[in-house]
């Protein structure tokens, strides 16, 4: 069965393994590190399609839910950036064990990218590469963006609602509770967190060339990790309201990711 639980038996993580369909062993294994919250819901379908395409290209691929997200154990308000990193490392070990692959590439989307590049610094035999797809660079701006997104939804007045918190410190965002720890981690997040070379090679895939992406590129390059940068608005369209209720999958971006993994050295 491709769906399985792993990790601590009292708080298992949900995983879904896509075995390679061709040329097994020639490609690196791939670990997909998803976004959280509303973005995680929106990304599910395209990440499944990405995993299927990678498996067809010969790359054993694991999707999983962080603890306190998706079908994994734990309440939403317990999710932290630290727990995401720990779960990425646990999932990496699981993937290597299941696939018998000698190396793995991590693909981290949005906050999954931020957690992946930080976790990669902590693993002695970590990933052969990390692909950061529209990564969160500025945690405070991310919190504010979530606040603004909820404020723009035109929600009805609710006499039971507690104080929502400051715009850059929301206690909840678009259906998900945000713990004080997670909010503090996000506010403290900066490129200064990147102190050790996270992996042999990094690829940044972003919709636009923003100053934030440029600063992340620079911070990683200073650690002597080669960085490739790719820009395509197609890769960000999945996160729009229009895409939410459509079967939208960014085909061009997925092909680019598969090609990147196929050519990974």
């Amino acid at each position: 069965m491709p769906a399985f639980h792993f990790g601590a038996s009292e708080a298992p993580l949900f995983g879904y393994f896509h075995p390679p369909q061709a040329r097994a062993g020639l490609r690196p294994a791939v670990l997909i590190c998803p976004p959280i919250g509303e973005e995680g819901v929106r990304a599910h379908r395209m990440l499944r399609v990405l995993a299927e395409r990678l498996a067809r290209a010969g790359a054993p691929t694991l999707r999983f839910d962080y603890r306190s997200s998706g079908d994994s154990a734990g309440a939403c308000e317990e999710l932290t950036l630290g727990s995401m990193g720990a779960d990425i490392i646990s999932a990496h070990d699981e993937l290597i064990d299941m696939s018998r692959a000698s190396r793995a590439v991590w693909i981290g989307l949005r906050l999954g990218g931020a957690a992946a590049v930080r976790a990669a610094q902590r693993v002695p035999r970590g990933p052969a590469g990390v692909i950061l797809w529209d990564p969160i660079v500025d945690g405070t701006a991310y919190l504010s963006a979530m606040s603004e997104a909820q404020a723009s939804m035109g929600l009805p007045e609710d006499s039971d609602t507690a104080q929502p918190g400051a715009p850059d410190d929301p206690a909840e965002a678009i259906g998900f509770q945000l713990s004080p720890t997670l909010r503090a981690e996000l506010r403290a997040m900066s490129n200064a967190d990147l102190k050790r070379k996270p992996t042999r090679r990094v690829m940044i895939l972003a919709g636009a060339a923003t100053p934030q992406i440029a600063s992340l590129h620079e911070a990683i390059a200073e650690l002597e990790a080669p960085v490739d940068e790719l820009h395509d608005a197609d890769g960000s369209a999945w996160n729009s309201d229009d895409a939410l209720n459509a079967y939208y999958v960014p085909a061009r971006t997925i092909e680019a990711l598969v090609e990147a993994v196929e050519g990974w050295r």
Partner: protein
Amino acid sequence: MERIVEFGSDASGEAATGRLVGIVNRQEDASAYQRPAALLFNAGIVHRIGPHRLNVKLARALAEVGVASIRFDLSGLGDSPPAPAGAAYEAQAALDISAAADVLEADGARTGFVAIGMCSGADNAYRAALQDSRIIGLVLLDPYAYETPRAKVERALEKARDIDRWKRAIGRTIGRDEETSAASSLDGGEDNDRVHPPVAEFGRDLEALAQRGVRVLIRYTTYVEELLTDPRHFHDAFKGFDFAGNLDVEVDRQSDHTYVRMSAQKRLFDHIAAWYEANWPRGAEAPAPPPREAGSAPDPAPAPGAPIAGLRRAGVRPAR
């Protein structure tokens, strides 16, 4: 305790395991199925966890009050591949929901099921109940709604009394403000191409279910506020139908369609738990098993924690 299951049946009714992906949540003791188990599935095209992870939160909240559940992806959604050719989407969804009930029945459920669906999920839930007599309860979140003259008048008066609305209108007129109110969810294409049956057809179906003894909880939100803002409006629309006292309607005007706010989610979960308690009190003698189709006698209930017959269960890999 949660376990991953794969299961399924195709349009011919033949078992075809390994197609649908779901998570069973139940107590690991004899109390697991003393109350009707809940069937949770997709709202729109969101995968089985539901909008804002509502299905996971609800499954775990129900488990705390002794209600087992399965949450799963219908064919072609989430992690479940499309169904084999032959069944239309609605028919396949009903088959999938019955297949999920089969999973819990094979696991020991003997007291019937409650199908809980939101929006298009509500449509799928009631259609499944029409075909599967084991479904003895329905929670329909923003099911079909129909406008009535009284609702129309009351809504117009309400709008006229809304000072903020006038301020917004003036602001728009002089170009200072943008209207940000949620548009009528049922206007144009904003209802995800959800086709509403004629009111008489929906009424007949609900009546047939209620007369069969199915307990129905209907919960509307502001999603339908251009059509209906009070339970009286629902009963106006379905005047002449006899729901035998088995149908409850609530309109939560503080909640949006997908229950974005934590406070709205809590009201929803509390309401469903209270409705369960009113209909199948915790600790009461388990209700009699619902009638089954002829020639399909249930197997003896397995011991709690025993493997689910006919299923490949997900392996739980040990902790490192």
